């Protein structure tokens, strides 16, 4: 907070009440304009208290954007923990989850040992949701954190709990009124000599109103006849503020008066801007001396470069400007807009352009910048600006902005309609704007298509992305880059979900790199998360790594529970399921569900249901699995065009139906598929499962032939593993044990690289695998792990770090450890050691934990590294 001016008195009684704020949780100062709230807060903040730090936010005028408010609050809270260094301001996001944001604020507050949140001008926050969330914040403040709020009128904050507990203090207008004694002190401090009667008159006329008294002081300070001034003032019936402002202005030198009037239409002013509006140099000097002389001009930072007028003061000056120089007002606004544009402050520029009545100009500015502003998290501000445009004459440039706004709010049909209008306009637009408009339209079309899950015909939007990022100014390049990064993200996403996979990876990687270059972490996370999903067909290790990278970056910015990271969360869950880490899979599914609380479209929810179904199936809960797959299938049918997950969803559905004995329904579904879909490997496998359930292993063999010889299209090699296992089961049923063993061996070989467990778990291959002669298989460790899982124990997740043993293994654990490199299963180990299987399980769990291994193979490897298996050990 900028320090208080020299002429304010110490209102000790009030300061004492505020000191009491450290005793109560929340203090509210509720009093009309000009009562002296801000001055009091500033005087109080000036007095250092070693026990508490201050985090001060002054709400911007007409703040419609709740996100901006919370970001400002978050930033000052962070800054308060490191007062000496500059903290990066918090980054906004296009999709705003207010609840999650307030949770973030609360968790940052929890780290503080003594903080007072000061929120001034709270009445300017025009957002109903924000008030509700603010109530939640205030009633859940951690210990040692207090709040002081200042507002012009009472707000619907439901703080009854605090009031009942005696934790709420209030300072109201009556408390802030200057007493006669304080009036005299104020006059004394300003060096004004008045008789006792005059002081009483002054006090009575102003009714102790702070703003009135301060205005009077300005006029009285160098007045030749203060007594007469007071007499005339008291004798007048005119409204106090108007009278005194007029007096004050009259007494100013012409250049000062001119400056005050002309700059009154700015929300904040600096010397350069004031010079521009007055057409004269030297404004900075004037502003500085105004601040020194009175409390109505306040600098906004320690460098005293920017200033703000007291709002009431500015409002009255503005009215005076409109009556005395009405023809100049639009020109002043235009000049201000020009300056703000040059200095990259787009929102101010748009507001002033609107105020100048230049609606087409404002529309162009908004259309050019709304994209970047939305990425900055200013979606609600843009809404407010849109609503300021007069109804009726609808500028086609605004169609683009409205389309964006609709998209952000999930109104897809309206967005499409506005986009159609914008597209028509692009042809007729002036040539210098055409390219940018084209890219913007293409980018929005991609966004819309992605949200609708409509992938067909959109891929040729990529054409306009291939042209290089041209541009005249830095700003142009920045705008183009934003558009391009979003377009790449959407294009890559669309490609990933409709099976153009190599292109998807390329575009998403390019998008992530560009986003990093232009400092858009939100887009970077979005691209990386989608890249995680697109990596599904790669070795699972790659997919896992990419997902974890995306999640780590998201968490660094506090976005670990946002919808954009959901693709990475659910893909990671899927990877865990495939490698047999069922408990981990469940955890990641939970996180995905939490992140998807705000609806983000059918495609990601489809994947969530698919993965949830797979997990149920792995655990043998086929009924629950069927439910999930049915929901997924329903979602798939709603999506237009081909879908990357289509064959998997249908395949799983059919397979589960068969496993539940519903072969009739399964056959019916199968028959309803068109030839293209029926040819896919996943459907073939499902058909084989149906045949096996119907007791026809020969038919099953025939069906999977295409998959095994590579002619059937497959999503990934895992389908081939499944096919091998199904063939093995079929051979077993036909009595051909040798062929069964060969098929099982093939499956193991394919699964070795990624250590896949799931295919074996799903196909009920326990007997098939157990029939494999142990000494004939080259995949002993994997086999043993699979059998462990099939018999109920879940693999423990762990990282692959190679730190030394944290805790010694007990003698019994060592005994068990020495059996791990063999092919013996756990029940067999138990019988060798004459202990129960449960005991073996416990020992194995401990061994894995102590060796930081996640499966038998890595445990054996670690044990070898640590030389725990040496033959010399006799314990």
């Amino acid at each position: 907070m900028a320090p208080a001016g020299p002429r304010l008195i110490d209102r000790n009684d009030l300061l004492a009440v505020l000191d009491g704020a450290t005793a109560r949780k929340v203090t509210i100062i509720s009093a009309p304009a000009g009562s002296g709230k801000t001055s009091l807060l500033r005087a109080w903040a000036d007095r250092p208290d070693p026990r508490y730090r201050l985090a001060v936010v002054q709400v911007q005028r007409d703040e419609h954007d709740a996100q901006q408010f919370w970001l400002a609050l978050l930033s000052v809270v962070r800054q308060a923990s490191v007062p000496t260094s500059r903290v990066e301001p918090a980054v906004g996001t296009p999709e705003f989850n207010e609840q999650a944001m307030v949770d973030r604020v609360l968790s940052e507050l929890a780290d503080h040992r003594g903080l007072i949140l000061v929120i001034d001008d709270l009445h300017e926050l025009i957002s109903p949701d924000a008030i509700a969330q603010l109530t939640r914040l205030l009633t859940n403040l951690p210990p040692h954190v207090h709040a002081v709020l200042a507002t012009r009128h009472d707000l619907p904050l439901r703080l009854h709990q605090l009031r009942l507990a005696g934790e709420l203090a209030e300072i109201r207008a009556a408390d802030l009124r200057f007493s006669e004694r304080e009036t005299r002190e104020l006059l004394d401090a300003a060096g004004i000599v008045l008789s006792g009667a005059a002081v009483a008159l002054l006090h009575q006329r102003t009714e102790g109103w702070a703003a009135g008294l301060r205005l009077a002081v300005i006029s009285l300070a160098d007045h030749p006849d203060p007594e007469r001034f007071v007499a005339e003032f008291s004798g007048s019936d005119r409204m106090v503020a108007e009278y005194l402002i007029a007096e004050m202005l009259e007494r100013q030198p012409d250049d000062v008066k001119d400056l005050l009037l002309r700059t009154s239409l700015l929300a904040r002013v600096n010397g350069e801007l004031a010079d521009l509006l007055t057409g004269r140099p030297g404004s900075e000097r004037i502003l500085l001396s105004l601040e020194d002389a009175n409390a109505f001009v306040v600098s906004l930072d320690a460098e005293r470069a920017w200033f703000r007028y007291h709002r009431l003061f500015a409002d009255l000056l503005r009215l005076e400007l409109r009556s005395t120089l009405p023809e100049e007002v639009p020109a002043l606004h235009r000049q201000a807009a020009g300056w703000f544009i040059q200095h990259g402050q787009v929102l101010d520029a748009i507001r002033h352009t609107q105020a100048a009545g230049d609606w087409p100009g404002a529309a162009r500015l908004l259309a050019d910048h709304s994209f970047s502003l939305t990425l900055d998290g200013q979606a609600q501000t843009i809404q407010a600006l849109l609503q300021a445009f007069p109804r009726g004459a609808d500028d086609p440039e605004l169609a683009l902005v409205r389309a964006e706004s609709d998209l952000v709010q999930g109104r897809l049909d309206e967005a499409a309609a506005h986009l159609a209008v914008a597209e028509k306009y692009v042809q007729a637009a002036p040539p210098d704007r055409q390219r940018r408009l084209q890219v913007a339209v293409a980018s929005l079309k991609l966004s819309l298509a992605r949200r609708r899950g409509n992938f067909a015909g959109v891929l040729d939007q990529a054409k306009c992305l291939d042209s290089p990022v041209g541009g005249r100014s830095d700003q142009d390049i920045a705008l183009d880059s934003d558009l391009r990064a979003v377009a790449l993200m959407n294009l890559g996403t669309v490609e990933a979900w409709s099976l153009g996979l190599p292109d998807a990876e390329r575009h998403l990687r390019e998008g992530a790199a560009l986003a990093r270059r232009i400092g858009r972490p939100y887009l970077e996370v979005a691209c990386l998360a989608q890249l995680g999903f697109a990596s599904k067909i790669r070795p699972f290790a790659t997919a896992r790594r990419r997902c974890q990278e995306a999640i780590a970056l998201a968490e660094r910015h506090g976005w670990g529970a946002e919808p954009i990271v959901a693709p990475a969360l659910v893909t990671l869950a899927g990877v865990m399921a495939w490698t047999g880490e069922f408990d981990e899979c469940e955890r990641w599914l939970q996180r995905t569900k939490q992140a998807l609380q705000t609806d983000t479209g059918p495609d990601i929810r489809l994947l969530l249901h698919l993965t949830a179904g797979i997990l149920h199936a792995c655990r043998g809960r086929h009924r629950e699995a069927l439910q999930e797959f049915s929901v997924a299938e329903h979602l798939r049918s709603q999506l237009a065009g081909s879908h990357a997950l289509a064959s998997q969803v249908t395949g799983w559905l059919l397979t589960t139906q068969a496993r539940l004995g519903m072969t009739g329904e399964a056959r019916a579904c199968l028959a309803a598929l068109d030839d293209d879909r029926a040819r896919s490997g996943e459907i073939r496998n499902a058909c084989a499962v149906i045949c096996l359930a119907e007791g026809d292993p020969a038919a099953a063999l025939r069906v999977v032939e295409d998959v095994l010889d590579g002619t059937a299209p497959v999503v990934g090699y895992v389908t081939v593993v499944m096919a091998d296992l199904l063939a093995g089961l079929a051979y077993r049923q036909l009595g051909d044990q040798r062929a069964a063993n060969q098929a099982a061996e093939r499956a193991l070989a394919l699964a070795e690289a990624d250590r896949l467990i799931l295919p074996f778990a799903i196909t009920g291959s326990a007997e098939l695998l157990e029939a494999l002669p142990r000494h004939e298989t080259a995949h002993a460790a994997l086999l043993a792990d699979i059998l462990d899982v099939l018999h109920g124990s879940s693999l423990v997740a762990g990282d692959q770090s190679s730190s030394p043993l944290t805790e010694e293994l007990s003698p019994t654990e060592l005994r068990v450890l020495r059996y791990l490199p063999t092919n013996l299963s756990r029940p067999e180990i138990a019988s060798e050691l004459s202990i129960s299987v449960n005991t073996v399980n416990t020992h194995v769990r401990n061994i894995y934990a102590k060796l930081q291994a996640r499966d038998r193979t890595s445990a054996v490897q670690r044990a070898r590294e640590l030389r725990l298996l040496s033959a010399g050990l006799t314990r």
Partner: protein
Amino acid sequence: MDPAPVLYAIRIQGHLGATVLSAFPALVPRHHGADTVLTGLLDRSALYGVLAEVEALGLGLLEVRQLPPHRESPESGDCRSP
């Protein structure tokens, strides 16, 4: 709730000069003693807009009163039947 504009009289403390009055172009001012009464036809939204402006300028709001329609209008509703 009546959506049509209605005649309101808003009493403010003190005499309002030309500058402050310019903030209320839709209202007609009259001095009543030491106060100013602003009268005009306002629907609900306009009324609350005016009240917000009154708050913003720190004016002393004394009274807000809805006036009966003018006696000249035939729908006056008072039963002065012949």
